[in-house]
């Protein structure tokens, strides 16, 4: 039997949803115009005023926001409420110095937790469940979001955070965890560890809510078989709130977007034109209920498809496919956002040639990052210690920039293929 956290919203008629969206969008645009000078300026440049936005059909008139805007406006430039009204900050991982921070009022947190509660109940959660959250807690939205949602559903919540696999398994066995929330790669790792430690049969898990990274249908089958659970996908981004922007239902054919809070559009990433439902393009979100950090037409850079076909679960909200790629070159490595340009900057600063290659792989369910860079005559020395020292400095500089460890491999000159046209800078070997 399908369970809903807020059935009157999740299964509302399309007319009702549209009417909420129209009303909330008009109000939100006015609010942003009045309180966010950064966005007001963008609207003025585009010649749009709040009076031009009478409903969802006028949404396309508004200017886009991108991650660059968030960095430029860092930290308070997109805030629509006085700091005194804000109660929480969350942040995206990676990119030191250029972090993206998002602010929340208590009301924002409440709505975010509602979204997560919808996801947990869609995965079959009730107040009888023991919800085991091993997403990271802290600036990362994974832990706090699912934790809040779990409280709302009334689950007994285990705020495990990430790491320490043996302790995770021990708590799962001793306290009878029934719902597991973590990244899919960690779920796969836990499954293997449980089998290895001989505790697989002692687990009471029935469902898992896995997100924050890309995973395939094959991986889903693998996790489901190994843990004997049903595995649900969940999607979100800190800029918009966190996990729970959309979530999977029992049909497992896409994630329902919480349209009472977020309006989704698919655009052509090159022209910015809105594309019809069913067309692959870049996903754009407009927050219509957020108070502190209301982003309008935020470009996620995730490529996916929206479908409004009737879902057997009874929910009426639009479904998005799993992201099929990115419209920029961002890589998500160990949950951290990495841009090749950041690596290039470090190499230039350290005096290395711009010819480099980034190799991303997944070994034992954990992402690895390797940067191959060519040795140059100027840097070469007969002294192996000096070369090792140089390598260590580069590793440290990359760590400082990216926030994660990158293995550095010095390779022979001209051994990195110089292709004509676009250079192949990134080799992603991860089988997702």
């Amino acid at each position: 039997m399908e369970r809903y956290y807020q059935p009157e919203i999740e299964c509302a008629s399309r007319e009702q949803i549209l009417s909420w969206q129209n009303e909330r969008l008009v109000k939100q645009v006015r609010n942003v115009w009045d309180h966010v000078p950064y966005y007001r300026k963008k609207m003025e440049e585009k010649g749009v005023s709040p009076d031009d936005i009478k409903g969802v059909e006028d949404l396309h008139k508004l200017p886009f926001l991108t991650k660059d805007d968030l960095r430029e406006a860092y930290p308070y430039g997109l805030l629509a409420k006085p700091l005194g009204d804000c109660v929480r900050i969350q942040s995206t991982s990676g990119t030191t110095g250029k972090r993206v921070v998002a602010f929340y009022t208590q009301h924002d947190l409440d709505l975010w937790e509602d979204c997560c509660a919808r996801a947990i109940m869609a995965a079959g959660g009730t107040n009888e469940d023991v919800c085991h959250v091993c997403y990271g807690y802290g600036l990362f939205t994974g832990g706090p979001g699912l934790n809040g949602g779990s409280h709302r559903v009334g689950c007994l919540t285990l705020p495990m955070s990430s790491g320490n696999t043996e302790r995770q398994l021990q708590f799962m066995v001793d306290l009878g965890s029934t719902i597991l929330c973590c990244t899919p790669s960690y779920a796969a790792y836990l499954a293997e560890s449980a089998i290895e430690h001989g505790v697989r049969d002692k687990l009471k898990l029935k469902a898992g809510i896995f997100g924050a990274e890309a995973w395939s249908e094959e991986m889903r089958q693998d996790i489901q078989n190994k843990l004997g659970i049903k595995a649900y996908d969940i999607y979100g981004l800190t800029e918009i709130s966190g996990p729970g922007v959309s979530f999977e239902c029992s049909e497992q054919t896409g994630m329902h977007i919480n349209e009472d809070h977020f309006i989704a559009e698919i655009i052509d990433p090159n022209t910015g034109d809105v594309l019809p439902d069913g067309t692959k393009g870049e996903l754009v979100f407009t927050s219509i209920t957020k108070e502190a950090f209301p982003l309008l037409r935020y470009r996620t850079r995730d490529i996916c498809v929206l479908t409004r076909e009737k879902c057997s679960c009874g929910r009426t909200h639009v479904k998005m496919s799993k992201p099929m790629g990115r419209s920029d070159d961002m890589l998500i490595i160990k949950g951290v956002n990495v841009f090749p340009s950041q690596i290039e900057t470090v190499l230039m600063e350290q005096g290395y040639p711009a010819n480099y290659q980034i190799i991303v792989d997944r070994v034992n369910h954990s992402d690895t990052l390797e940067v191959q860079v060519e040795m140059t005559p100027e840097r070469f020395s007969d002294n192996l210690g000096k070369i090792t020292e140089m390598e260590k400095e580069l590793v440290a500089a990359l760590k400082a920039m990216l926030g994660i460890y990158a293995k550095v491999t010095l390779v022979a000159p001209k051994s990195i293929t110089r292709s004509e046209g676009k250079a192949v800078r990134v080799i992603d070997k991860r089988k997702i």
Partner: protein
Amino acid sequence: MTVNQISVFLENRTGQLADITAVLSENQIDLRAISMAETASYGVLRLIVDDPQKASAVLLEKGFIITMTPVEAVLVPDRPGGLSELLAAVSKADIGLEYMYSVIDRESSNAFMILKTGDNAKLAETLEKNGFRTV
């Protein structure tokens, strides 16, 4: 005598070493000594050849990264404890030894040590003073 050692950057990829020896033999360069210092992913190959200028030219042409390093070649006295006498003399003179490797001369069957220090002049002087033959 101070000789010019050629150091070559080597990626840990099979075949690179064979490429180098092939290039040298094609150009009739006689390889007198070879030594390798390496980490898990790369290494420095050290070569003593009969014609360092020619060898460096052909290696550069093949795209290898090289550097020339002056090192000292010393005959190891052919008696028990010969090597330790040599090292003791170097240590006593307070000369920092960066690395060394041995080589057997094919014609004379004599054992030589190749020594790399920070101060070649002082090393040569010390060796001479202690009666070691450099070549």
